[in-house]
């Protein structure tokens, strides 16, 4: 199946200061994206920015889908100005997915900042399972989807760097506290995480210390998203692997952080 398609913007809503929720209507039926999958989006047809940008799937609406993004540079700045009716070129869904085995009934989800975008889609998929969500952000204003999480019946454990909501501190420290206080949590738990690099590095250490298994979704600059440019590699115990093809979801213990 040819995964290149055109999509119409049906909504592009500013939900926080720098955060937007984009809803796209594909011109053709696309493969159902799974939590962890991503799309390459052209923000416009100019030569600058030149390349498509990768965005993880946030919500699948049956035919349409949503992308949650933050204005971080020129490309996302242009994207934030796209209006309903505008057309975008998209390739996807791409990459692997969070491999959730049915036997993992105890799951801990960890999201940092915009890492909530794919973690939310996983939470939505797992709704019948018992799981805990640890969600950290710099400040209260950067916490997203709280109401939507509540409507899924999820009450996240929250931490903010500045203490404006939930615990004050980084989310991995709060997770560590929970793990030391609640020995039951340590056994038979699977971690599923997405967030900024420092969070994932701290999580890797924590997972090693408490012998926890799990997966994390990584991000990296990429040109094609199809496995050919070899631009998006990360270092693993088995050598370099492509975030777009072997990832973006990797086993926690497989990533070698510099």
């Amino acid at each position: 199946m040819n995964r290149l398609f055109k999509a119409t913007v049906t909504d592009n809503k500013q939900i926080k200061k720098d955060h937007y929720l984009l809803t796209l209507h594909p011109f053709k039926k696309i493969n159902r994206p799974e939590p962890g999958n991503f799309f390459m989006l052209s923000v416009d047809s100019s030569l600058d920015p030149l390349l498509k940008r990768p965005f993880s799937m946030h919500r699948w609406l049956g035919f349409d889908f949503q992308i949650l993004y933050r204005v971080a540079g020129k490309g996302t700045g242009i994207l934030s100005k796209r209006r309903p009716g505008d057309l975008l070129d998209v390739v996807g869904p791409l990459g692997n997915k969070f491999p959730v085995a049915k036997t993992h009934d105890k799951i801990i989800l960890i999201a940092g900042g915009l890492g909530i975008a794919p973690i939310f889609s996983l939470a939505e998929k797992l709704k019948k399972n018992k799981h805990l969500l640890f969600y950290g952000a710099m400040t209260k204003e950067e916490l997203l989807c709280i109401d939507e999480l509540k409507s899924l019946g999820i009450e996240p454990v929250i931490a903010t760097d500045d203490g404006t909501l939930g615990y004050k501190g980084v989310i991995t420290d709060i997770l560590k506290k929970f793990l030391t206080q609640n020995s039951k949590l340590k056994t038979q738990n699977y971690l599923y995480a997405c967030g900024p690099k420092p969070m994932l590095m701290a999580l890797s250490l924590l997972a090693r210390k408490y012998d926890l298994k799990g997966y994390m979704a990584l991000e990296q600059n990429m040109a094609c998203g199809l496995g050919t440019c070899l631009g998006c590699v990360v270092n693993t115990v088995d050598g370099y692997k492509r975030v777009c093809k072997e990832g973006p979801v990797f086993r926690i213990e497989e990533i070698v952080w510099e």
Partner: protein
Amino acid sequence: MGMNLSVDLGKLKLQNPVMTASGTFGYGKEYSEFVDLNKLGAIVVKGLSLKPRQGNPPPRIVETPAGMLNAIGLQNIGIDNFIKKKLPFLKQFHIPVIVNFFGDSISEYIKAAGKLNETKGIHALEMNISCPNKQEGWSIFGTDPKVTFKVVSEVRKVTDLTLIVKLSPNVTDISLMAKTAEDAGADAISVINTLTGMAIDIKTGKPKLANITGGLSGPAIKPVAVRMVWECYKTVRIPIIGMGGIISAEDAIEFFLAGASAIAVGTGNFINPEATMDILEGIKSYMSAKGVKSLKKLTGAVRC
């Protein structure tokens, strides 16, 4: 209207002039959902060496205005793995498979070329003497005419396949390098590889690429590439494969007019995975509108 799009590269005949640039199309399979590979002029696969190479540490790519810098570092699966795992897929298509290859020494170039020459299903070789992302004085293969002559003529001795030499733009006089490749026995030249560039993150004060410098590609380099094709065309008789920032049929036609017999799409594949087919259709429309019956008539037809 009968239109002749065929191209001759040494012994090799292409059905049309649209090729893929090495390193931007994987081993073909990755793009087969977007492009009917049988419709390409030829497929050029990711550069191969005798042994697998893991390449440079990340970050390896960074976008720049109308272009991108890459410092992949020639990561590849090695010739043996290519023959075992990738070539069988390509054999089902009737278009030429061109293998881009390189070595760390003249003897490695010879060994690699010899091995590829014996392999069924490979129709031409493209010698990479010009990757900007290798260390240890490797650039002399593509920048010192004496060394270029030596390595190309030695490879020429071990292969009777069409031999294409991919030239570096990071030289003072590209036509001298083109002439050197021709004199050493090359059947065609690819013009150009990427231009060495650099980008710095002003917040951290550090280079954006782990390798510090990388190769610039994309529309930003197109005028440089067109000029270099034109200079080579005035100097050599062997065919030129033009490349460097081609993303549309209009770009491709500029290269033909400057002197290219065929063209390769590189970064354009990343922007639009169907770019090669869109460009091929656009070339046909242009020829039809201009009443050009044979593509060969366009080569070098710039009116200076």
